[in-house]
């Protein structure tokens, strides 16, 4: 009888651990096609903006941890010359191929991931661009639809913080302040 009680206790404990592990896996969502858009236009005569459609993002809904990664060569500009200057002279894409954000949804407890709706989210973390890391905070939205989260956020950074220099010859066209918007529809991560 004593053995059978011990067995039951082990079974219950095992089931709880298994459930914990399963619910943790179910709490992770990802996309490999997050969209990032930035603009640092200074002159109304010429738009300096680009879009990247191949960002990766992972969100752990239980802990609120969120990660974004983007390949710098994936930014597409309307003008090829602008794209070449961006990669070769400004962000040096061959030396620093990717930019990464690792952070936390600060108000994660207020977001009901199991209930469809739109929730304001405050994210805080570290952004690495051009080999330089700086703290970043962003306000955004987490939309839950059909049980799946979508993220959208906007924030502003300064190029000088990331040691990206603007040559004086184009300083009237390119702003040191860059507005960035990020969005992605996430799918459950099965592992």
């Amino acid at each position, binding site marked *: 009888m004593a053995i059978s009680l011990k067995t039951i206790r082990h079974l219950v404990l095992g089931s709880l651990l298994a459930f914990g592990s399963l619910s943790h896996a179910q709490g*992770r969502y*990802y996309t*490999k*096609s997050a*969209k990032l858009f930035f603009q640092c236009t200074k002159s109304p005569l010429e738009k300096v903006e680009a879009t990247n*459609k*191949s960002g*990766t993002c*992972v969100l752990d809904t239980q802990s609120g941890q969120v990660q974004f*990664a983007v*390949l*710098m*060569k*994936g930014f*597409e500009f*309307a*003008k*090829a*010359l602008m*794209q*070449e200057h961006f990669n070769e002279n400004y962000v040096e*894409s*061959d*030396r620093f*191929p*990717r930019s990464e954000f690792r952070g936390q949804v600060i108000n994660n407890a207020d977001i009901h991931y199991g209930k469809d709706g739109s929730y304001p989210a405050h994210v805080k973390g570290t952004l690495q661009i051009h080999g330089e890391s700086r703290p970043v905070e962003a306000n955004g939205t987490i939309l839950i639809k059909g049980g799946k989260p979508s993220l959208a956020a906007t924030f502003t950074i300064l190029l000088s913080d990331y040691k990206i220099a603007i040559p004086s010859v184009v300083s009237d066209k390119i702003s040191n302040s860059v507005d960035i918007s990020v969005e992605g529809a996430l799918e459950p*991560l099965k*592992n």
Partner: protein
Amino acid sequence: MKHRKTIFFSLTALLVIAGGVYGLHEYTRKNADLGHVRADLQISAGDLIRKMETGGQAAERELLAKKDYVIAVTGSIKEISRDEKGYYTIALGNPDGMSSVRCAMDTMHQKGLAGLATGATVTIQGAFTGFNQDPLLGSDVILNRCVISNKKP
């Protein structure tokens, strides 16, 4: 003397005009249409993923240093996604794994993509954009400005 002056000013004017035309052409130049470009490398999706996994960051940097390194990749369509603007991304590779070659299709070459189905074998060529490797998300080679260069049932 007058004749010499005329020739000098004509040549100067010609040079200024040629410079202006070249400058304007460069300023307004769009990215090359990869549908008319010969690929630098022809490879299967599985071999390309393995090549990048083996070579790691060194292999990625070597390819990134080359301007517009065009790869023609042949593989089975694992996933076709279309965003709200109608732009397609096609992933080639093993449907059971997380790894793939992800091809962001050129917006000028969207015609005919709606007819593609998962499981079909295609050859897609695009500009090498980078390599992502993650313990959770697998290994992905990213190609941009992609075009279908060959389609098999």
